[in-house]
């Protein structure tokens, strides 16, 4: 018998979780030995992985501020993970006090953690759902309560799409989300790529293999493939670029070379 959609997947903390590994890269302690072990193995191939994560966070912060500056007050962050610090609601609510932030993740531990963090925050909530089933996200009572889909939304898909395999058709899922958003909405996206990694490809592949082995494959896509996620949206300047080059606050020479791994961009729908 197939497990029905409304039953969450079981959790097994003896299996590494990408969101807890992410926390570990960022110096957090919201993780277990299995997570740290996997993260350390990946870092043996790519010692600069934490810098990639940090660049992701920094980009997200700039993008959220940009969106808020453009008048957007609603944020839908899918694949939010464990918000160690500098999360979307902190940045957004600092910029716009009545900003509304909806976090979505399919990792029950990340969701439970977010619930604890967000307790008492009227403008933010978390939903256990899967990016691969966008309809369930869009039609959930949590999203309906917090987000008005008739007004512009900033949809954040930061460091998540490279965990969705082609077999699960990430393009269709993103298209469905894009189509649900009102004019003026933005798509904020980062994605892993071999391009920009300051290492020979074999080394990077070693890190990719680690994710393969923990049954959470990391799908590296080319810039063109990543650009397709924005289909129908107009790219905000400077387009799809390495993370440090997207509207930097400071001179990029401060940046660690690893920060330029992968691509980041923001698109807007007319």
């Amino acid at each position, binding site marked *: 018998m197939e497990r029905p959609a409304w039953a969450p997947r079981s959790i097994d903390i003896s299996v590494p979780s990408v969101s807890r590994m992410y926390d570990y890269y960022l110096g957090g302690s919201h993780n277990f030995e299995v997570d740290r072990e996997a993260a350390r193995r990946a870092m043996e191939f790519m010692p600069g992985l934490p810098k990639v994560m940090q660049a992701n966070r920094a980009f997200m912060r700039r993008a959220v501020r940009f969106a808020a500056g453009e008048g957007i007050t609603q944020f839908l962050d899918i694949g939010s993970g464990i918000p160690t610090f*500098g999360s979307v609601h902190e940045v957004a609510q600092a910029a716009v006090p009545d900003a509304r932030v909806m976090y979505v993740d399919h990792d029950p531990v990340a969701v439970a953690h977010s*619930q604890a963090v967000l307790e008492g925050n009227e403008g933010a909530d978390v939903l256990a759902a899967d990016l691969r089933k966008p309809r369930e996200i869009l039609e959930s009572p949590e999203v309906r309560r917090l987000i008005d889909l008739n007004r512009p939304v900033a949809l954040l898909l930061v460091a998540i799409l490279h965990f969705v395999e082609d077999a699960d058709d990430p393009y269709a899922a993103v298209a469905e989300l894009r189509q649900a958003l009102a004019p003026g909405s933005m798509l904020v996206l980062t994605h892993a790529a071999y391009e920009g990694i300051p290492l020979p490809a074999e080394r990077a592949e070693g890190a990719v293999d680690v994710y393969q082995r923990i049954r959470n494959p990391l799908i590296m896509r080319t810039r063109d493939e990543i650009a397709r996620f924005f289909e129908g949206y107009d790219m905000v300047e400077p387009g799809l670029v390495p993370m440090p080059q997207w509207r930097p606050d400071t001179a990029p020479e*401060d940046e660690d070379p690893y920060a330029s791994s992968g691509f980041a961009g923001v698109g807007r729908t007319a």
Partner: protein
Amino acid sequence: MSAEPDGPEDRLRRFATIWSRAVFPVTSTSSTRPEFEELLLPLARQLSGALRARSFDAEAGRAVGAALVEAHCTDPEALSRTLDCVDAYLVLYCGEDGDREDLRARSGRLQHAMAAGFAQALRMRTLAEQETVARAALEAQGVVAQALHATEARFRAVFEGAAIGIGIADLEGNVLQVNGALRRMFGLSEQSMRGRNVKEWVHPDDAPQTWRLYDELVLGEREHYHLEKAFYRPDGTVLWTNLTVSLLRDADGDPQYQLALMEDTTERRLLNLRLRYEATHDALTGLPNRTFFFERLEKALGAGEGQRFGLCYLDLDGFKTVNDSLGHAAGDRLLVEVADRLQACATASTEMVARLGGDEFVALTTGPDTERTVDELAARIMNALLAPISVDGRELTVRGSIGIVEGPAGERSAAEVLRSADITMYRAKSAGGNRFELADPESDARAITRHGLTTALPTALDRGEFFIEYQPLVHLGDGSVRGAEALVRWLHPQHGVLSPDRFIPLAEHTGLIVPLGRWVLEQSVLQARAWRDLHGGAEALGPLRINVNLSPCQLTHPGLVQDTVEILERTGMSPDALCLEVTESALIGADDDLLKPLRRLAEMGVDIALDDFGTGYSNLANLRRLPVSVLKLDRSFTQSMQRFPADPVDLKIVEGIVSLAHSLDLAVTVEGVETGAQAEQLRILGCDTAQGWYYARPGPPDRLHDLALVDATG
């Protein structure tokens, strides 16, 4: 904050800049370095203050260490770089002009305190985060467990409450679990269901593949199968189900259980059987009906080589009379009794009897030897009808006519066979009934032509395939043409010109006679007017009269008088230019209602001729009653006068009829005059007008015009 160049404030800021540059690369903050520097500036001020305080307190160092952790500098490398930086630059940038030795000692102690504060804060933070994530994991597990529990409870409810029967058995066939619906279907308790083995449930009606499919499934060679299956209930009754069995595999894909889903179809099956019975049986007699019979006949005709069929098509003689005189209820009881007797005639499983409708029955025999068996079957049927049938205390004698068709399978369609049987039955009936006849191709062909003509008739009128020929009516006294009889012909596209006797009975049968008759009447009257218009000079002889035949059907048609009047008025012809011919047989037993339209026409001045007089039962006394002004003697009277000398008896008869007619004020016309001697004889006998080949064959209207002209001038 403005700072005077190289003043204390400026030097403090330069220290913070150096510090942030050293540490920023090992932090994981999402802030920018300048932002990070702004964050370090108050910490630097604290250190600077402590360095130069009147009474030294290293506690400030602890607070700065803790603040670093707060700013997400959790990497020990951040502490190491911080201490390096403080060690190298704090005294240099913030010492101002204090005692170097003392300042260096203070800086050292501050560093110790910072390390302790950092370590303490990092430890607290780590513990707190560990606790948070552990609690989150626990909570998540609780949520998952709860959801699983709810899932399971829901599945339980679905399983127990399902209207469909669900059962799970292991691969050996041992029943492990069944739901309420399944128990109710079987009429068994959970206790007695469990521990039973699937393989016990063999039923004689199991489809041949049933247990092969089962074996394939439990061996893992098949994922599921679906079939209709019967089971015995403990009370001996039968449960029919729509059964779907699926193989359940474990996570590794190994077969583990079999899952059966059953739908109780017992009642639906019974209903289907009943509906099927009702759809294939005659409600009155319980015999198979037309549908069923056709199925069987088609099967028999589709049988393989060497197989033959024999069909008896029975129609009761005079059944209509029974219905009309004794009522339909009596008729129905008669049919039921006949059906019972016929049913008894079908003695072998290869024989069947069915009711096609009304009083028509069929009996079918199949096999290699039907040439013999069909004769025997027909004989049994005739025999079965011999004994009178008692209905409402009356003993009714029933007779029937049977048409027999016998032949090899695979040559003819069911419809062809049945038509042949029908035709043959009519042959038996017209030969007097109470007999059976064997189909023969020649009479079939004739009847089939009749059938073809019948179906072609309706369109023939629309397509203008009919035309009229005229045969002159000649005055015997002076030989002048007095009129003509209109005779309709059908120019059939395949069969050529057909005479009225080929199609008028068919037209009568189908009702087409009414529009066809109206057309003939109209055309004929129009023709009469055309002659009148041409014939202006022959007034002395009176108008040329047109004779038109009326069929019995037209006679009873309510529009006859109105149609006739309308046609006469429209053409401007006077009624005495028209003579309607009615056969004697059509008027036999005619009552006043039937005669009324004829009377009305006669009163208007239309002549009515009694056609074919002498062929039927010529009731002379009746003649007075009829609104008739002309008798047309049938050709049979005049035939003998072709010879010389004529038969004296015939002469006497004709003389008698003529004198009787004249005494009733009726004119006499003779038909079929073929010789001059004949004409002369008839003139002597007192006949008034004549028609026949001696004068002219029926022909196109202009021929008659020529004759009349010759006549008038000659």
